[in-house]
């Protein structure tokens, strides 16, 4: 039974909804408008923004963002899982500097980091898409590590010993016992890493040298250059919708 009264729960829910939906409401309306003159309460409805977005390479950009997010998640989650296991179960003793080391990529200004590393990566002749993936993974690993570390910290390490004592090999113990136990954290970590790749602008722009056009870059270019609100809004909604859908699907799956 909830500790909060229905009034508090409904009130809290409404506040959360306003917090998340209110900023999106204008762009959702704009994306379905042909025009919205100042002073009019409602826009003139139309799909010009979506038509222009489709013609403005929205679909390939969304695909690139999806692939980038998936690759970053595919690399950052296993790394985060291993690091989270070592930190959560304090394998090899306590790690007093781990927090500082892990947070370093997030703590540093991304622009400065990207500019500095751009020079280095260019001199190493690392292909730009690879460099983008590597850097975004570095940014995603702290998130995945912290999420998985919390899961391991809440799981008794003796659970693997117990599995071994029932005849499971080390691999079986991990696969059949530990991974299912921390699966929710792994999904959360994957979602977080995906978001880092999906929504990144700075790293992709600077390291990618403008040739790797992802959805956020398309939105930013439209927002800064065209003055075409229906187009910018349609692009922004296209970027946000998959995330909202993923969130809802995640909720449904958990239920």
């Amino acid at each position, binding site marked *: 039974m909830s500790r909060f009264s229905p009034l508090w729960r409904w009130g809290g829910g409404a506040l959360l909804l306003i917090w998340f939906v209110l900023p999106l409401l204008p762009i959702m309306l704009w994306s379905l408008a042909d025009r919205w003159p100042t002073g009019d309460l409602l826009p003139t409805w139309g799909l010009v923004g979506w038509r222009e977005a489709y013609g403005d390479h929205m679909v390939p950009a969304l695909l690139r963002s999806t692939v980038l997010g998936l690759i970053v998640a595919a690399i950052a989650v296993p790394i985060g899982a291993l690091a989270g296991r070592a930190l959560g179960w304090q394998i090899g003793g306590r790690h007093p500097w781990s927090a500082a080391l892990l947070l370093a990529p997030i703590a540093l200004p991304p622009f400065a980091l990207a500019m500095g590393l751009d020079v280095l990566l260019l001199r190493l002749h690392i292909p730009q898409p690879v460099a983008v993936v590597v850097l975004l993974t570095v940014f995603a690993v702290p998130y995945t590590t912290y999420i998985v570390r919390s899961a391991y910290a809440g799981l*008794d390490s*003796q*659970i693997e*010993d*117990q*599995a*071994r*004592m*029932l*005849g*499971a*090999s*080390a691999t*079986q113990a991990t696969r*059949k*016992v530990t991974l*299912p*136990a921390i*699966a929710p954290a792994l999904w959360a970590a994957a979602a977080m890493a995906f978001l880092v790749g999906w929504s990144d602008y700075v790293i992709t722009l600077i390291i990618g040298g403008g040739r790797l056009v992802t959805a956020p870059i398309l939105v930013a270019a439209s927002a800064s250059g065209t003055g075409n609100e229906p187009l910018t809004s349609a692009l922004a909604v296209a970027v946000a919708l998959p995330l909202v859908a993923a969130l809802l699907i995640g909720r449904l799956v958990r239920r």
Partner: protein
Amino acid sequence: MMRVEGLRFTHPGAEKATLDDVSLAVPEGSMTAIVGASGSGKSTLLRVISGLNRPEAGHVYVDEGRVDDLPPERRGLTMMFQKPHLFDHLSVLDNVAFAGDVAGVNRSDARAEAQRCLEMVRLPDMGRRRPRQLSGGQEQRVALARALAAKPHVLLLDEPFSALDTELRHDMHALLGQVRAELKPTIVMVTHDMAEAGLADDVAVLHDSKIAQHAPLAALFAEPASVQVARVIGGFSEVVGTCTDAHHTSALGAWPIRCADDGNSASRQSVMLVRREQVQVSADTAQGPIAGQVRSLTWAGSRQIARVAVGDGLEVAGEVSLGNTVSVGQQVTASIVGQPWCVDV
């Protein structure tokens, strides 16, 4: 059967070995309890036997085969820990069928065997439940069923019932007795509860990294090998004095004693170990030969135990005689029944 020889193990970073030259043999179908003070290495011994910790020296044998080079899952051993460690993502039935599953047994066969084990621990209808739907006692029963389903040559129990309340613990003891009668597994159980140790055929006392004594519990109570063993078992008063010709002389006077070295007539420093059941405390000051003052009173089951100061800083614990009522600070007398055991200092 299970046997260890010359085991040595030091925890990383520790200066002193936790286990040093530990040897122990547990005959086929018997049960041995390992007792010792906290931190004496009881659980470490089980982890080394199971292969979860690697010893620096020594060997482990299961059914006469050396297993120290085998990984834990291939040693033919199963361990129950203090916590049941049920796997939350599996149903109770699949928890019990886990050993069959990882061994590659057909799923329906593994589940049928799991159901048989659940019936053995008297939980036949719990298979579809999730572990979080079980009570503490039910969780340990499922853990026992799961361990039995693995069909181990040796079952290692690391204080698995210590977190249960008294009634549930007695229930698990009865269940363990039933399992022993039906399956006759070889069992090594770590415990700090002497009543629980009494379930075993014999008891090994771990002290100072070694097995200090290995004997049936009755023999340990009657003839502890050292003062340290007596302290681990508990319930003894230690009376320092001199032993000569099977008599012990101390602040309590001269008492006939038994000792390991009965033939030695030389006078020597020794400690008389008096069990509290051997000391009768009476409120009648003319009753016993030892006079003293009650320092504290406790209960052991239905019997009241008085600690009596008898001078020279010496205290002895004894049972208050039936029909007597004593209070703290009261002058009483005590008498020793039978011949206490004596060990050299």
